[in-house]
């Protein structure tokens, strides 16, 4: 008897908790990303020298410095060093042995950060762009007890080598030179600092010049040229300039990658090695992996790579006579491989990660110390694509003479950063998503079919719709055995509240849409919005050369299909569920079918040009001195449920609904003015315009247009009568400001903007907001019945807020209290200051960094809109601006409902005989 009561108490207690915890952390997801890590700026390092626990540090291609916990892949801390990511930025990250700081160099800034929590210790601006940053591993007693000093090499007009105090960031000495020699890299041994310069010869070749500097005073002690006259055509074939190994080296190859030449810095001898071709393919890449610690053995590994295979040679440096000898080779393997260096005391270990195994060897001998098979990296890839390791960093733990475990953080060719413990993947971070440049939602094909069936039933005549529905349900009966089999599990999950929403195919709410993200390096990555923990598929769609940029725009023209448009290729389509490329078709202009001659407009040379059938329709030239900042057209698919607004007295204010609207923002850099135009894009007429003077054009200007309203935000400079502040302007267009008046066109069925130019009546209202909005978007629902939320990206507080439209409604009564009718409409008195309600923050506690764009998509449920934000971080959620009126929330207590029904059923069964007896007795017995 007691067990049900305990169970009931348990469930009721659970439901009581559920009242307070909303659906945060359930419906939303967030990837705190760093960007693709670079080999030269990633390493394992112990933030606390006394503890053996280490973190993985990286300074990524996006210019984000971060520390990742190798146990679970979570970000411990991160710092954005670049406001705008450059495709191939030059950046450096170093950590001295046993140091609790890491030193980064990017652009012209050298900065030191606390390794444990990411706090900045110091920052220093150098005169020119940085060419190299190293840590000076000296033991001359000059450096302070705490942090080791750094040396930085800066380029620019006055190249210089600078020694920076590790504690304060002050410059200890500076060595400048004048001349044509370009700085290349800097390296330090225990006794000397070497600056490697590139000396251009008359014939256009490059010679390597090594300048030795005294680390204490910074005076030049020696200078010599190491490479011969016409060996180096460019700096690209310089393989490596050895870092703080016991004896730093410089290595280069000839342009055919057939000869490797190595020079130990500080000496003049050059050792030359032939690179044997292992097969018909030419060597494409040569890389050197050497330990960074001064007390490590001076061994290094040269990694050769061809198009199909890779191998490596290990070399030993004899410190006494400065000779370099090849010790052994690691055999050729097909596919790509990644080598990484790990040290333990003086011993050096090389870890080789290939597509199917992880192998560790000692630098001293070729005996394999540990070999683990890799069953798979656990990442999604495109059809037929083999996942290859690109580069790796590893940490080797040694027990006695054998390797007990190897942890390798491997960047894969799919853009995933995976940690392999021995051979098994522990976590993976889809860092490729940090470089997303365009994203779209796509309805899976199965759901699209369901949607079409529902639409057929909604629009057909009742009888045929009924027959359609019955046949559909009869077909659904085929799935009955499967459903019956999974029923007990589903019931249990429903009770326990652990039910994950079903898969993509059985998604009747439309939450499982596929998000396709095109990344800067030419990949297309698909996520499931309802189950975002794993990547659905991830494949290379554009073959980009180094330094080439790609500006794709992805869209989903119909369910189940993703289309990529870019400069190079228009209308390449992919299956949204599997990522297969569909047969390439000519870009059919779908818009042409609907209207005879669509007007097409584009920004061209700073002007807005519209054409009809190659003829100029209109063009918009900004006023002299103005430039176009942005253009936001009304979304093509923007359903509106009601064409008017119902007032409190039940009269109607008609909305000015025209699909051919666009909001254009221009700025004048001289007068600091920003102009906002609402344009009719058929006739080019200006429907509304507003000039704001004294605008801080360095701050973001964001704008948005939807339905019959627009919003924009800018930062106003301080003026005589107002302080500097951020403003949000909301405007709404009406057919007429007189209620029940539908304007001059009245109820005519169609209209032509060319012939009848109607102008809207616009109401606008300005609000003072606490921080600038860097980007705006708006929620979209299936039929547009649900009220809207303006989604504003707040870059300063790393957040996204959803501002309900009612709050920024321009019809809020100004300087008077709302009348009773206005109160019924939900209008409240206008107040110029709009504070962001903490409840509006979609991200809750999380920090969403670097968001560049927000895309929204309607779910199948009218109440719900899906939101996906990308940039550096990836964040997504589901929003119900008018609350979830068409679906039961998680707080609905199924157990309580069923218990009530069961209790009533029991009561009925118990009471029924009693009542029957009483009724019989009432007939037969007389009191």
């Amino acid at each position, binding site marked *: 008897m007691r067990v049900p009561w305990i169970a009931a108490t348990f469930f009721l207690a659970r439901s009581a908790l559920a009242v307070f915890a909303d659906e945060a952390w359930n419906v939303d997801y967030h990837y705190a990303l760093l960007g693709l890590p670079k080999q030269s700026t990633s390493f394992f390092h112990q933030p606390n020298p006394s503890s053996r626990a280490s973190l993985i540090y990286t300074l990524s291609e996006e210019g984000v410095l971060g520390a990742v916990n190798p146990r679970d892949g979570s970000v411990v801390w991160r710092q954005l060093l670049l406001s705008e990511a450059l495709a191939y930025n030059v950046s450096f990250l170093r950590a001295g042995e046993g140091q609790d700081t890491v030193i980064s160099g990017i652009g012209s800034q050298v900065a030191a950060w606390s390794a444990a929590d990411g706090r900045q210790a110091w920052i220093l601006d150098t005169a020119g762009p940085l060419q190299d940053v190293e840590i000076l591993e000296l033991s001359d007693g000059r450096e302070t007890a705490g942090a080791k000093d750094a040396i930085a090499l800066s380029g620019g007009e006055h190249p210089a080598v600078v020694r920076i105090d590790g504690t304060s960031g002050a410059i200890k000495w500076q060595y400048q030179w004048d001349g044509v020699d370009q700085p290349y890299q800097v390296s330090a041994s225990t006794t000397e600092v070497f600056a490697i310069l590139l000396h251009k010869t008359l014939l256009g070749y490059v010679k390597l010049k090594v300048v030795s500097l005294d680390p204490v005073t910074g005076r030049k002690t020696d200078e010599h040229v190491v490479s011969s006259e016409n060996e180096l055509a460019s700096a690209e074939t310089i393989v490596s300039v050895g870092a703080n190994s016991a004896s730093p080296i410089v290595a280069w190859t000839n342009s055919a990658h057939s000869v490797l030449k190595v020079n130990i810095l500080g000496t003049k001898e050059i050792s030359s090695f032939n690179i044997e071709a292992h097969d018909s393919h030419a060597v494409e890449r040569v890389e050197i992996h050497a330990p960074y610690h001064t007390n490590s053995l001076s061994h290094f590994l040269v990694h050769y790579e061809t198009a199909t295979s890779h191998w490596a040679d290990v070399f030993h440096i004899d410190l006494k006579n400065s000779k370099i000898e090849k010790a052994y080779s690691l055999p050729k393997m097909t596919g790509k491989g990644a080598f990484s260096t790990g040290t333990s005391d003086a011993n050096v270990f090389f870890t080789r990660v290939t597509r199917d195994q992880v192998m560790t060897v000692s630098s001293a001998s070729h005996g394999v110390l540990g070999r683990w098979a890799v069953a798979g990296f656990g990442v999604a890839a495109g059809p037929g694509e083999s996942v290859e390791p690109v580069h790796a960093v590893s940490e080797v733990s040694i027990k006695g003479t054998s390797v007990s475990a190897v942890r390798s953080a491997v960047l894969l060719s799919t853009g995933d950063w995976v940690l392999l413990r021995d051979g098994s993947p522990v976590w993976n971070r889809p860092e490729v998503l940090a470089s997303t440049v365009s994203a779209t939602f796509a309805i899976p094909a199965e759901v699209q079919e369901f949607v079409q069936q529902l639409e057929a039933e909604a629009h057909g005549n009742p009888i045929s719709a009924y027959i359609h529905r019955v046949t559909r349900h009869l077909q659904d009966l085929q799935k009955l055995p499967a459903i019956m089999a999974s029923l007990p599990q589903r019931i249990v999950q429903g009770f326990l509240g652990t039910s994950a929403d079903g898969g993509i195919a059985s998604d009747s709410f439309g939450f499982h849409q596929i998000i396709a993200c095109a990344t800067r390096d030419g990949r297309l990555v698909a996520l499931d919005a309802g189950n975002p923990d794993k990547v659905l598929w991830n494949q290379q769609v554009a073959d980009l050369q180094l330094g080439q940029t790609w*500006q794709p*725009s992805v869209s989903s023209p119909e369910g189940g299909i993703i289309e990529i*448009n*870019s*400069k190079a290729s228009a209308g390449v389509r992919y299956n949204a569920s599997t990522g297969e490329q569909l047969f390439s078709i000519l870009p059919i202009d779908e*818009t042409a079918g*609907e*209207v005879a*001659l*669509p*007007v*097409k*407009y*584009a*920004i*061209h040379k700073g002007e807005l040009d*519209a054409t009809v059938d190659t003829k100029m329709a209109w063009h918009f030239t900004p006023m002299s001195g103005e430039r176009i900042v942005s*253009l936001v*057209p009304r979304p*093509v698919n923007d359903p*509106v449920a*009601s*064409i*008017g607004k*119902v*007032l409190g*007295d*039940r*009269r*109607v204010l008609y909305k000015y*609904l*025209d*699909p*051919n609207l*666009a909001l254009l923002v221009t700025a004048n850099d001289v007068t600091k003015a920003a102009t906002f135009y609402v344009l009719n*894009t*058929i006739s080019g007429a200006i429907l509304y315009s507003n000039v704001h003077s004294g605008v801080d054009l360095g701050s973001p200007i964001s704008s948005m247009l939807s339905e019959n309203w627009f919003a924009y935000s800018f930062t106003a400079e301080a003026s005589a009568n107002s302080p500097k502040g951020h403003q949000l302007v909301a405007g709404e267009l009406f057919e007429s400001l007189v*209620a*029940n008046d*539908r304007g001059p*066109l009245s*109820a*005519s*069925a*169609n*209209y*032509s*903007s*060319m012939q009848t130019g109607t102008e809207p009546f616009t109401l606008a209202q300005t609000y003072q907001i606490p921080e600038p909005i860097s980007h705006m978007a708006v929620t979209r629902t299936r039929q547009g019945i649900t009220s809207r939320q303006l989604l504003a990206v707040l870059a300063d507080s790393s957040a996204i807020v959803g501002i309900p439209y009612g709050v920024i409604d321009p019809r809020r009564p100004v300087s008077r209290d709302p009348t009773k009718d206005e109160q019924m409409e939900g209008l409240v008195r206008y107040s110029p200051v709009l504070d962001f309600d903490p409840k509006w923050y979609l991200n809750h506690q999380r920090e969403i960094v670097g968001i560049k764009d927000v895309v929204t998509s309607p779910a199948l449920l009218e109440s719900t809109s899906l939101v996906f934000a990308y940039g550096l971080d990836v964040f997504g959620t589901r929003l119900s601006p008018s609350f979830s009126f068409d679906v039961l929330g998680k707080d609905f207590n199924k157990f309580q409902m069923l218990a009530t029904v069961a209790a009533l059923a029991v009561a009925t069964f118990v009471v029924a005989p009693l009542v029957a007896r009483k009724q019989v007795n009432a007939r037969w017995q007389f009191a």
Partner: protein
Amino acid sequence: MAGTSALPPPPPPQWVLELTAPTAPSKAKAGSVPDPPGFTPTTAIQSRQSKNTKGTAIAPRKQPSPEEMDTLKIKKAWELALAPAKQLPMNAIGMYMTGNSLQIFSIMMVFMLFKGPITAVLNIQGTFQRLETESNRAQMLGVKAAFVGCNMLALALGIWKVNGMGLLPTTRSDWLAWETARDPLERAYYVPSY
């Protein structure tokens, strides 16, 4: 002295006699005072016939003439016909007090307000059947019309109330769903430059 002693004692006074003598209800006395109208003693039920002949005060009721009956029936019918009108002020106050919000009580009251007059009008023949004769049929028409009118007044009160609650589609917003947006003849598309 002897003469005085020979005298018989004087008869007791009347009040003594009345005091000592048991009081017996005298039938003549009872019969002379008529019972209050509508009072029927239990003993009289069985011997009503004899009493009627004996009692002279109870005059036999004169049967009203058919003309008088008609007048009476018309009078009664008018009362019936005007009864709904008499309830109107009370209903109006009730409706006013419940307010215009859509709540279960106001909805139920409005429902009763509609149900009453409609059922009354539907049952109009049954209501006046008893009072209708061949001779007063013409007059009865007017009465029935008045009855219908009074019920219509009650109905009007209900409609006024429903209107106050905003349930009548009398405004533009009620027909907004049937108005469609104008279709533009042209469409413009933004071509982003890559």
